[in-house]
């Protein structure tokens, strides 16, 4: 079976500005893939090209095995898309807006009404369902957008900053929703700036910078590449002279003081050595844990590095 998304040498130029450059992206079926990167790095442009909403300057795109420019209907019937700023017909109610989408997909009948009802319930919009969208808050529109995407029962969903404007509770529920989509075998491509969320739900991520996808892989893979495979040990301890003692342990690369203790970067898992050193110095040890690298750190470390190199 073909990959859900496959691009080769995908490029988009606006005059002299290169928005996306030579992108080779493969998203396997059933995968949750996150695209990350600073503002203006080409995430939205990439998504637009996947949907045939803008024409690539060069390169090829295959979505569910088809070319979205040459066979748009076959692609769009099976792909759900949530734009970064989602809009609805203000004077129509949420339900009517969904009904219109259903009709555009050729879906009719009582089963559709039931499905709309179900989605509105799932998004917590039942109370507002028959009010004009004009009266919705930003986050309510975003929820309606998610219902709109799921309505056609897509095989692939593409979400551009889906949690924008959602309250923490809704954002959390949204993460659960994405997981349930994955369990049902859907493929998900999403862009986001909320790195801990991305880390929580994605199988792999791609890091964009200035139109190029410079890094791609699972979070541990990226950590290895960016953070040099370093281990991080968080030590919660008190005592005199601990900092120099910890720094003196062979294999410790860096010691950073933080609230209530230290953060060590080490070559190996040095937890026993750290414990021993603290005790030897007469310090009081409260906690010791080996830390998974967070996407947040990877992201920051990576962009600090490339920006330093560029400067």
């Amino acid at each position, binding site marked *: 079976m073909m990959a859900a998304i496959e691009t080769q040498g995908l490029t988009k130029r606006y005059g002299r500005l290169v928005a996306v450059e030579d992108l080779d992206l493969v998203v396997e079926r059933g995968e949750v893939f996150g695209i990350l990167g600073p503002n203006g790095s080409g995430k939205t442009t990439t998504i637009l090209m996947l949907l045939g*909403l803008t024409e690539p300057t060069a390169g090829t795109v295959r979505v569910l095995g088809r070319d979205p420019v040459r066979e748009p209907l076959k692609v*769009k019937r099976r*792909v759900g898309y949530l734009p970064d700023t989602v809009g609805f017909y203000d004077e129509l109610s949420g339900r009517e807006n969904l009904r219109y989408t259903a009709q555009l*997909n*050729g879906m009719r009948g009582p089963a559709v009404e039931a*499905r709309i009802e179900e989605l509105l319930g799932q998004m917590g919009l039942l109370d507002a369902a028959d009010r004009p969208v004009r009266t919705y808050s930003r986050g309510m529109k975003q929820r309606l*957008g998610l219902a709109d995407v799921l309505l056609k029962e897509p095989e692939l969903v593409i979400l551009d900053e889906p949690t924008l404007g959602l309250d923490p509770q809704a954002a959390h529920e949204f993460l659960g929703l994405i997981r349930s989509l994955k369990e049902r075998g859907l493929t998900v491509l999403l862009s986001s700036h909320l790195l801990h969320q991305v880390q929580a739900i994605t199988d792999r991520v791609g890091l964009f910078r200035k139109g190029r996808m410079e890094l791609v892989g699972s979070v541990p893979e990226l950590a290895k590449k960016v953070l040099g495979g370093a281990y991080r040990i968080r030590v919660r301890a008190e005592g005199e002279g601990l900092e120099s003692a910890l720094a003196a342990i062979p294999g410790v690369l860096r010691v950073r003081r933080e609230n209530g203790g230290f953060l060590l970067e080490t070559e190996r898992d040095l937890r026993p050595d750290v414990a021993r050193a603290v005790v030897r110095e007469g310090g009081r040890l409260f906690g010791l844990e080996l830390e998974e690298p967070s996407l947040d750190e990877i992201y920051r470390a990576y962009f600090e590095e490339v920006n330093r190199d560029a400067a």
Partner: protein
Amino acid sequence: MTRREGSAFSGLGVVFLKEFADQLSGTRMRLLEALIVLTAMATIYAAIQTIKNVVGEDVFLFLRLFTTAKEPLPSFVAFAGFLVPLLAIALGFDAVNGEFQRRTLGRVLSQPIYRDALLFGKYLAGLATLALVLLAVWLLITGLGILFTGLAASGEEVARSLLYLAATLAYGGVWLAVALFFSVVFKSPTTSALAAIGVWLFFTVFWGMIAGLLAPVISPVHYGFPEEVLRQAQTELALARLAPNTLYAEATLALLQPEVRALGPVLPAQLEGMVLGTPLPLSQSVLLVWPQFAGLIAAGVLFFTLAYVVFQRMEIRA
């Protein structure tokens, strides 16, 4: 749940029905209806006043309902020629950029429909709205006319007035397509409305003047021969006919005034054997205005195609 296999017009009906409902329920529709009804009433009043005095002298009394003016009110035909373009522009100026502004375009175009279906659905909805309004006005005039003057319309008169309605619709279709085109080209509805009205003003006010200035340049009269004078007049007419309002005015004239036997400069030779003032049969009038009619439709198609070409390649960034 059934899914229809997609053709090029997949979704056209859905778009049409939604847009049509939007048009009819919109506030701007209420305003325009009020305007149209008001003018219809005013002109019918004027016409009835005048017509009462000439009953019996005129065979085409019913058609005079549409063409009679009484100071200071213009005839209904003059009113319509002025209002229909504005109505059409009002119905179409924000068709596409309005969706951009509401950020609905990306969402709609990621559904399985072609862009043509969206554009065409909107155009047809505008046209249907226009047709509905025109038909309502026609019924109003016919009804009131019969009520107040007691005259009975002949079959030919009804046919002629309905053909006039069709020509009006075709004329409105041109301006609707112009408005649609600008709504694709410009991102702001204000700009597109101004641009469409600008084009309309250009043709209504300035084009006749420009044609008058250009004709002597293209076909100068050097020696004052009748052939030269005629050629210049023909050139001027040909130029004037590039404007949809000229075509529409000619079509209106020939349809509502059966005694009009020719459009444009007439040579004495052409008049030979004609009895002046005898009305043309309907079929002949239709033949006479056929080119004008076709021209109006062609102009509509041209602007729609332009809109389509631009829209097809446009980037849909919300």
